[in-house]
């Protein structure tokens, strides 16, 4: 009995002693019934009380023994078997695993660097052009082209690189580059060191959920035909960027700033001491960001990591749509696993410890070769590392079929890779998935909110405003991939993820909330970083003259100036477009000055002032207002401000400037200019603005157009 127990292949433990193979566990996982346990249990249950249970357990042992089988393994002694199990495997592949791990860490650090560098640092400039990892995701580019008719030429190069890499080597992107995959691997090492929580030993379960990623991908592609993007929620790069923006960065900055704040606490005043020594502790602060919907995004992320307790890389195996797309492409890749069957001792290490569950032994008696599925494999090289008899070899060879066709080798002579398990997705499921997606799309398109979007080009919710440069509503929802880069880069935190303000299909798309932050006058960052062109690039002059995000409205019932006389002029003070104007208004509740003549004229304005019964109140000039929300942000009336920006008179007919050929082609490029005929209006707005604003100082001052830098220490 005990001999059998030792010979049983152990799940989750590769015997490497944590040294090289990349496995996450060196111990027996919890929840697995070992045969030794069964023996112990039977010893206990020999008591008359549980005889039926003992009989059942004994039957399990017999079944188990049959299932394992001895096969060619039986010819070795127990000592030889032990040595084989604990053999370090192929030293060359150990080296490759180390390289793979280094590449993973390096690309992850690069991703974090790109993430941190996407900050607004200058007018029409930014830390990083676009997040490079968003461009590596060619599913993103694909759906962007299909759904929003925007061919982003800047994304074709990186996408083509990943496509060629996949054609050569399968899902190398998933195993070596993807920051979400690396995050899952890191979390695995931290969370599941002591074994997986509810790990299943049933081998059929590796196949159980495998097709969901194809179903998700096909459903999404079906919906894309109608311009409805449901793949954005599962797109791995969008998902991890969104998670970093909403879930990881804000709490980190919050705790770090709280630590710095504690240095100013009364007994020591460390911050004060540092300031008096010539430094400034505040320069170490992270800029704080705040977002709605962080909890929902966090729950998805945590759930995704928790599923790894059931199967390693559960997300990548079963759900990731980009992984599904790469899996379909990798069927014809060249980097294959060659298995020498005569050396295999059927130890099942490869099958049980494969990171993606890509090895399978479907033969009932386990005598046949384990089959390998290249579409499930992410080329992590673990199987080659742990194979005790070194029969698995991963080699890039010209496929035998091509060799034979080109007569490079006689038929049957070329080395053939391992037998492949087919993707077990029938025609019915393919059709059903695509059909479900198309049905989804038709339902969304025929819903009232979408009807409003098509017919009236704006949303029903009057407080739901889009960032400047946003496409028209239906095109915007189709193009936005919910990566939250625009919200990360927004220097005033004005862009927030929408919940249901734009309908269900507008979930987590950016929404401008002026009461949280205004749209800064000279900032163009959201248009610069948007990877899909849902927010078109614009200049600050475009924002001033051509774009309208909404219109400010004064609520006369709560406004301080309308009610309290001359006590507040903040909205007019802050408006950079001179759109808020204070005008004299007759108010018959004011006391009449009897000493004045009835046709008394105001000494300043020269108008009749009804014997002093006028007050100065804010009004909005709708030609000049762009809806930036600076007035709403600074309005002292709380919590509902007295001057509020609504999406009335929103104008998204803006035509983006195309400075470089790689800016790509937009949906409307082959139409005539949508803003044609508006040039006179733009010129009139510019002339009106220049009456109020001296943009150019006198000759002695420096030209102001140079750069916009939120770093508030210009001289230091």
């Amino acid at each position: 009995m005990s001999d059998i127990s030792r010979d049983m292949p152990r799940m989750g433990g590769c015997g490497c002693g944590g040294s090289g193979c990349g496995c996450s566990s060196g111990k027996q996982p919890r929840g697995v019934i070992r045969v030794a346990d069964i023996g112990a249990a039977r010893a206990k249950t020999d008591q008359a009380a549980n005889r039926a249970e003992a009989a059942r357990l004994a039957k399990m042992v017999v079944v188990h023994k049959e299932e394992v089988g001895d096969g060619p393994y039986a010819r070795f002694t127990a000592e030889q078997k032990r040595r084989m199990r604990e053999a370090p495997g192929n030293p060359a592949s150990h080296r490759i695993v180390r390289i793979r791990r280094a590449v993973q860490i390096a690309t992850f650090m690069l991703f974090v660097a790109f993430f941190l560098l996407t900050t607004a640092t200058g007018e029409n400039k930014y830390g990083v052009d676009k997040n490079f990892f968003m461009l590596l995701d060619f599913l993103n580019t694909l759906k962007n082209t299909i759904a929003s008719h925007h061919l982003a030429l800047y994304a074709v190069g990186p996408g083509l690189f990943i496509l060629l890499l996949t054609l050569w080597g399968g899902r190398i992107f998933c195993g070596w580059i993807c920051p979400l995959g690396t995050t899952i691997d890191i979390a695995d090492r931290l969370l599941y060191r002591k074994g997986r929580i509810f790990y299943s030993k049933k081998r059929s379960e590796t196949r159980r959920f495998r097709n969901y990623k194809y179903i998700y991908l096909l459903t999404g592609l079906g919906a894309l035909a109608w311009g409805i993007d449901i793949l954005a929620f599962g797109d791995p790069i969008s998902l991890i960027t969104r998670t970093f923006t909403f879930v990881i960065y804000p709490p980190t900055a919050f705790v770090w700033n709280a630590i710095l704040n504690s240095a100013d606490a009364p007994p020591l005043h460390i911050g004060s001491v540092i300031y008096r020594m010539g430094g400034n502790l505040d320069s170490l602060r992270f800029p704080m960001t705040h977002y709605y919907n962080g909890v929902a995004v966090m729950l998805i992320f945590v759930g995704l990591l928790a599923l790894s307790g059931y199967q390693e890389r559960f997300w990548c195996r079963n759900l990731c749509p980009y992984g599904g797309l790469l899996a379909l492409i990798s069927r014809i890749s060249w980097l294959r696993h060659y298995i020498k069957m005569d050396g295999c001792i059927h130890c099942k290490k490869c099958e049980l410890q494969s990171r993606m569950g890509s090895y399978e032994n479907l033969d009932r008696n386990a005598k046949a070769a384990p089959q390998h599925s290249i579409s499930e494999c992410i080329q992590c090289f673990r199987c080659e590392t742990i194979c005790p008899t070194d029969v698995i070899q991963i080699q890039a060879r010209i496929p035998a079929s091509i060799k034979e066709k080109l007569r490079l080798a006689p038929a049957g002579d070329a080395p053939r890779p391992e037998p492949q398990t087919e993707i077990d997705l029938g025609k019915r499921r393919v059709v059903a998935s695509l059909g479900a997606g198309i049905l989804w799309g038709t339902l969304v398109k025929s819903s009232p909110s979408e009807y409003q979007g098509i017919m009236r080009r704006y949303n029903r919710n009057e407080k739901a405003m889009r960032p400047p440069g946003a496409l028209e509503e239906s095109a915007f929802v189709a193009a936005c991939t919910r990566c939250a880069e625009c919200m990360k880069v927004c220097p005033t935190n004005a862009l927030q993820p929408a919940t249901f303000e734009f309908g269900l299909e507008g979930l987590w798309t950016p929404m401008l909330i002026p009461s949280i932050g205004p749209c800064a006058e000279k900032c163009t960052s959201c248009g610069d970083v948007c990877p899909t062109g849902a927010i078109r690039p614009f200049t600050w002059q475009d924002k001033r003259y051509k774009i309208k995000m909404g219109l400010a409205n004064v609520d006369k019932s709560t406004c301080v100036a309308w009610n309290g006389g001359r006590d507040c002029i903040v909205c007019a003070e802050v408006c950079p477009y001179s759109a808020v104007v204070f005008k004299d208004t007759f108010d018959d509740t004011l006391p009449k000055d009897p000493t004045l003549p009835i046709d008394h004229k105001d000494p300043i304005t020269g108008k009749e002032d009804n014997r002093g019964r006028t007050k100065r109140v804010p009004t909005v000039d709708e030609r000049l207002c762009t809806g930036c929300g600076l007035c709403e942000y600074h309005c002292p009336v709380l919590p509902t401000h007295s001057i509020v920006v609504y999406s009335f008179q929103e104008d998204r007919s803006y035509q983006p400037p195309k400075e470089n050929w790689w800016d790509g082609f937009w949906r409307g490029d082959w139409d005539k200019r949508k803003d044609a005929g508006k040039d006179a209006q733009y010129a009139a707005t510019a002339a009106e603005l220049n009456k109020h604003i001296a943009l150019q100082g006198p000759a002695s001052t420096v030209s102001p157009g140079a750069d916009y830098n939120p770093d508030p220490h210009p001289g230091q």
Partner: protein
Amino acid sequence: MASEQKPGKPEQRASRRQFLEIAGGSALVGGLYGLTFFEHEGFAKPSHIRPPQKASASTPDIVAVQGNPATYGDITEQAINELGGIEQFVKKGDRVVISPNMGWMRTPDQAATTHPAVIRRLVKLCERAGASRITLIDYALDDWKLAFKICGAYDAIRGTRASLLSPTQPTMYKKVNVAAAVPNKTSDGADYDPRHHYDRIQQRLPRDIIEADCFIVNPVVKNHEAAVITIAMKKLMGCIWNRKDYHRYGLHPCIAEINMFLKPTLVVTDATRALQTRGPKGPGITTTPNTVVAGIDPVALDSYCCKFLTVENITPDQVQHLIIANSLGRGQIDTSQLNIKEIDGAQPS
């Protein structure tokens, strides 16, 4: 990693590690709980700003020097010299904060901002007196970098050790207790209800002002649509974070109260140009009194400077925050009781 436990005494091997894990974990959790006290801002030390002092009893309360557009710098220096020289206010090694009006995208001739010549001479004087750090602070409502460039402040500090600062981030501020400086009774014995109260207005100041030794206010004379005038007293609203509550709880008492707390060492009012209408941003009617006024009492200076606002004929008794500050004992509103020295800057003093 996978160290097998010896069957004999498993607890002893684990005990130290377990202790460290528990101790470290509880320290982490406790530390995170403790950090919630410092959620948004630290606690500031009381202000270092040196209280204003007259050089001698015979020193005038207010010095007004008139000049011409070519001598704005010179009359600034002359006005300060009449008060006893810059050394009276700025000591060697001081951290000096100057607060001029420079937060608007307006050219100097539109009179919404302090004249660059006045700023430059003031910075030069502070450098000459041995200031170790000079910071020019104004919380700009317009885009601050453009505003600093257009109003000329960027050029004014060129070649000096001074730096410009627009504290637009909340993290640059520290909480202060303004209510402690406000009396509950006016000088007449009437009750006074402070607007700064722990659950009404919590005020925050930039660290640079809290740590400063010398605080110089350098306003320009302007009409204000809401606060009637904006000169030295209203200028302090360009140095604080929580300005919204001032509009909600009444502008005038709040301005008077922040002046009770934050007492500038020196006030140099730039009346070389005065914005008469549509203040504080303009553009409006401007006049050129060509005068620089200096003193240490902002209430007295503002009362005196009302005479430059000739278009709307503003008198000090129309300005509520002057009256409240006077009744709280901050300064003298009645200019007839002050020792005022008016000089024509064309003649050598």
